[in-house]
């Protein structure tokens, strides 16, 4: 895992990091063709079922304030406890008209991001996650989430979630944050 951290960190100062991440994806060889078209929720259901079958973790915490159903919070994209949100400090786009990996209508995704490594209890794997901000509308203000696993101060920007990652967008106002699985972290 450390080596992957380093890979990101070494490329973190450049606007070309975006490209670096894409290259990494290819390197990791974890891309399933067509994944771009897969909406998140079916995947969530799958892993939820899996966790339930395995008697896996079913954290009793309440779901996010928009979530009205009782769910295992680590498996609820409307909850801050969702496993993929382990380094989100902001508003969850899934509570703002988007999903956990899709920006709300009328916003624009930030091309530059910070990176996290999150553990998915449903399959006991660590995943590399890209956090992107969605930009160009005022703060969503819903489902505020503040998690900072492996988050670092702004002198390590690729791991920092305090920066407004909309900074380089044409409309650079922060609206909400998404979490996009890039691949499995190397052990």
């Amino acid at each position, binding site marked *: 895992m450390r080596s992957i951290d380093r890979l990101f960190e070494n490329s973190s100062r450049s606007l070309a990091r975006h490209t670096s991440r894409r290259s990494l994806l290819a390197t990791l060889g974890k891309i399933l063709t*067509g994944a771009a078209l897969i909406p998140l929720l079916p995947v969530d259901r799958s892993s939820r079922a899996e966790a339930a079958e395995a008697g896996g973790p079913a954290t009793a915490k309440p779901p996010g304030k928009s979530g009205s159903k009782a769910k295992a919070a680590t498996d609820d994209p409307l909850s801050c406890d969702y496993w993929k949100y382990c380094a989100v400090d902001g508003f969850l786009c899934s509570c703002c008209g988007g999903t956990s990996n899709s920006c709300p209508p009328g916003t624009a995704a930030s091309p530059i991001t910070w990176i996290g490594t999150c553990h998915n209890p449903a399959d006991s794997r660590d995943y590399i996650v890209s956090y992107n901000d969605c930009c160009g509308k*005022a703060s969503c203000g819903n489902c505020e989430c503040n998690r900072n696993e492996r988050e670092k101060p702004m002198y390590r920007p690729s791991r920092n979630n305090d920066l407004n990652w909309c900074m380089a967008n044409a409309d650079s106002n922060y609206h909400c944050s998404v979490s996009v699985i890039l691949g499995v972290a190397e052990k």
Partner: protein
Amino acid sequence: MKSCLMRAALLSLATCAPLLAAAPPPPLPAEHLTLTTLPPNSPHRIYVLDEAFLNEIDARIDLFDGDTYRRLGQIDAGFNPGFNLSPDGKTSVVSTTYWARGARGARTDVVEFTDNTNLSVTHEIVLPPKRAMTLPTYFNIGYSSDSHFLYVSYVTPAASFGVLDPAKGTVLDEIDTAGCVLVIPSGPNRVASLCESGRLQTVTLDAQGHEASRAMSDPFFDADTDPVFVQGVPITGGYAFLSFLGQVHEVDFSGAQPTFQKPWSLLSAADKAQNWRPGGAQVGAIHRKLGKLFVAMHRGGEGTHKAPGTEIWVFDMKTHQRVARWPMAPQKLASALAVQVSQDDAPLLFAATENADIAVFDALTGELRHVEKKFGQTPWLMMNP
């Protein structure tokens, strides 16, 4: 195998279990960052105007789906905005004010047009710095019935309104209203305004958006003894205006001049004795096909016209009889500041409470379906397609 893995990731491991045998489950696929497409318009969609009163330069309209209980997106709305939908529901219009330095500096009054299929701002029309800065109603901004004109209320405090061409993006004219306020559009070229004398003034426009004629109605209320709320409620062919003391004034705007039905009261003698009154920010809503009026009601005296409803009362618009009363507290809800009802055959009643919760009821039975907690800061107006 790959397709099976895909199915496994998408649906359920069970279907592919024999193939996987002792192998661990496949890792989750990489995701791509996408932009969410709005679901098709629905009668159960609602546009909630959050005035954000404590941070008033940051008002916004939040779209909410009364079936899935999900937020659909946000339209930014600046300071003290007016808001309305185009007659076809495809466009949101926001009339608002920005300052070059947040709450200071050069002032820009503007109308912003948002495409309701993707929540992008398509264009804007800059206004003279005269826009009425006040609470949102149906009548701060509104379209002519054919969408050729857009009217914007001005108060400087001299009262007038702007006539805009929404398609060409131009301001056509400003029309003085001699102290009467707000814009109540009717037909392709008429605009009525509410006057202190209890009358409606109607300005008729020519094809270029200039004044062709104006006329003053008889008084239909008395601002001293029993003023009407400016939050008119749409009825077929016009609006119903509720008064502070619970009179219902139905006004038909379908002709060249408004005509008035005989007012009727929400209150029985017993209700009056108990000091029941309508109140709040958006006091009533009407299901036009069913002929049902929903009103936020509270008990109180002079000066309580903005008090939220401890109960929602339901009236039959034909018989003028109350057919239900739905208290908020037994449902563990705070009092209702704003009500709106969907216009379909399985209607939902939406109530925004003073705690900024949005409660969703079955409008036929009063059954509470959902409570969306803390929906923004100060949701004071709800519109629907």
